């Protein structure tokens, strides 16, 4: 049963990921990316990671992708005006991505060494457990992530400001 779910969602997510890459219109790309995220959340549920699944939906599908759509609409980029790369470039890029895929899949062979540990797995993905880890072991990264957010906010504000004063008088006597 789970295996069937897995395969259906896996095939669909690969298809929608391919749509992201090959869709003519950026809006279609965004929409299929959202579909991919939903399918991945399904995988998380299969993996007993219900909390991650919900957060994934809220953060990615809910926030980030809306931001993308918003920018697309703001810049009015719905129309397909993108010039294509030459066939040679496309071919070589596809080949190199394929090689990457082969390498990655080649590395699967060694993964058998990991035995599943169902006893712990049942509780790993619960909010209680994750919250404990986040606020005990991960408290420093949690705080440090706030620096990241402030930096990103200040950066976005800086870019948002129009720089009007570049040609004013020198102010310092250094």
């Amino acid at each position, binding site marked *: 049963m789970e295996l069937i779910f897995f395969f259906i969602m896996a095939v669909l997510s690969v298809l929608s990921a391919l749509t992201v890459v090959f869709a003519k219109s950026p809006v279609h790309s965004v929409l299929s990316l959202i579909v991919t995220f939903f399918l991945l959340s399904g995988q998380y549920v299969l993996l007993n990671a219900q909390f991650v699944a919900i957060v994934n939906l809220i953060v990615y599908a809910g926030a980030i992708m809306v931001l993308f759509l918003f920018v697309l609409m703001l810049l009015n980029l719905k129309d397909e005006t993108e010039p294509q790369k030459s066939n040679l470039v496309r071919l070589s890029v596809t080949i190199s991505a394929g090689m990457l895929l082969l*390498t990655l899949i080649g*590395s699967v062979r060694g993964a058998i060494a990991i035995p599943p540990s169902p006893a712990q797995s049942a509780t790993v993905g619960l909010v209680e457990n994750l919250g404990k880890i986040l606020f005990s*072991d*991960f408290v420093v*990264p949690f705080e440090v*992530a706030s620096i990241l957010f402030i930096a990103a906010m200040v*950066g976005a504000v800086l870019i948002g400001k129009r720089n009007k004063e570049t040609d004013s008088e020198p102010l310092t006597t*250094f």
Partner: protein
Amino acid sequence: MKAIIILFATAMVVLFTGISGKRTWLLPLSVLGLLAAFASLVVDAQIPVISYGGMVRFDGFGLAYSGLTVVAATLIFVLSGYFYRGLKDTLADHYGLLLFSMTGALCMFSFEHMVMLFLGIEILSIPLYVMAGSRMDDLRSSEAALKYFLMGAFATGILLFGITLVYGATGAFEITQIQQALDVKKVYSMPLFNTGLLLIIVGLSFKVSAAPFHFWSPDVYEGSPTLVTAFMATVVKTAGFGAFYKLFVMGFGPETPYWSMTIAVLAALTMTVGNLSALRQKSMKRMMAYSSISHAGYLMMGLLSGAAGSKGLFLYLVAYVMATIAVFSVFMLVNKDDDIAGGHFSAFSGIGKSNPVAAFILALSMLSLAGIPITAGFFGKFFLFTGAFTNFPWLVGVAVINSAISIYYYFRVIVEMYFNEVADPEKFVIPNTYRLVMLLAALTLIGLAFVPEQVLALVP
């Protein structure tokens, strides 16, 4: 940790001071904060401590490298007073972002858990994506920001996949535990682990702009405001190599031959590609970009000489950082308006006559970057090459040939300054702050020859 907190607090104070409109306070405040951070690094104990739930590890290595980046950042801040003379409202934002970036760099020297490395890289990079595009009206600056951002984010993705594979193979994110897992479980031969290592190498190579993942850096270096370029060439490079060293030599073990050959090949490729491309450049900033690529190649040799490599790496970074700051400080004076057209080599013509002091400092930095005795750059190269000599003699050979090639383009600047007759070269004013930075850089470049032992002793 104290230094990270001090820097973050300084950044916040600077941002609030900026809101209240006290423009002239910003620079002294920032420099004060940096000096306080440096002082806190100096008084910290060098004994390795893993703390905060196994997230961070403070040791002599991290202190020394943090100290170097803080010094470099301080010098760049001192230069910024004149460089940002035209900025009014956004100055506080600029300073705040640079200070945030510094906290990221310090995280990269003190991480124990991969999440700290990852956050450190992002905190270092995200402000810089913005700073690269901080000349708002200039398309080339925006383009630099976009390229830097896309390449940075792409590299992050690759790095994360690598970290994940290593996690899958070893079951741990902490570098000490990874090393234990390597000892106990013998996962060296696992394809999963090795693919992970490969992806981490690729991701970090993007960050330190090692070939063949270097192609973004010349455009980004050229398009960014020169002060930001100086920051990228010094602080970011140092941070990248600090992380590289911690991860590979301390984490994945000094004795493993699995990755060292990969890095050796990358190093040879990087220095060769960087040097050969630098030969053809006409723009100073592009030349410095390719030169920094080739230096990344030399620096990678520091990863191949085992635990002792951190000493040579550090000495080389000191020399490289100081010389680079000196070069950019002169460049910022020559190219006052910071436009790309003014960045051609010919802008330096004749300054040997009009501004002998600046010309001397620039010449000294070029000699040091080229690794000519008795400058600091030579000592850096010497210790790096000596370290890698036992295991990779062929790589040292390649590096030596590259050092000889690099003379050609470094000396082109010297030739422009001294030997090109210009009827009436323009004499530019040197602000006192620039004099101070140049003097400090020059003293380091010459003085290092007399105290290499003491500098090496800073790193355990």
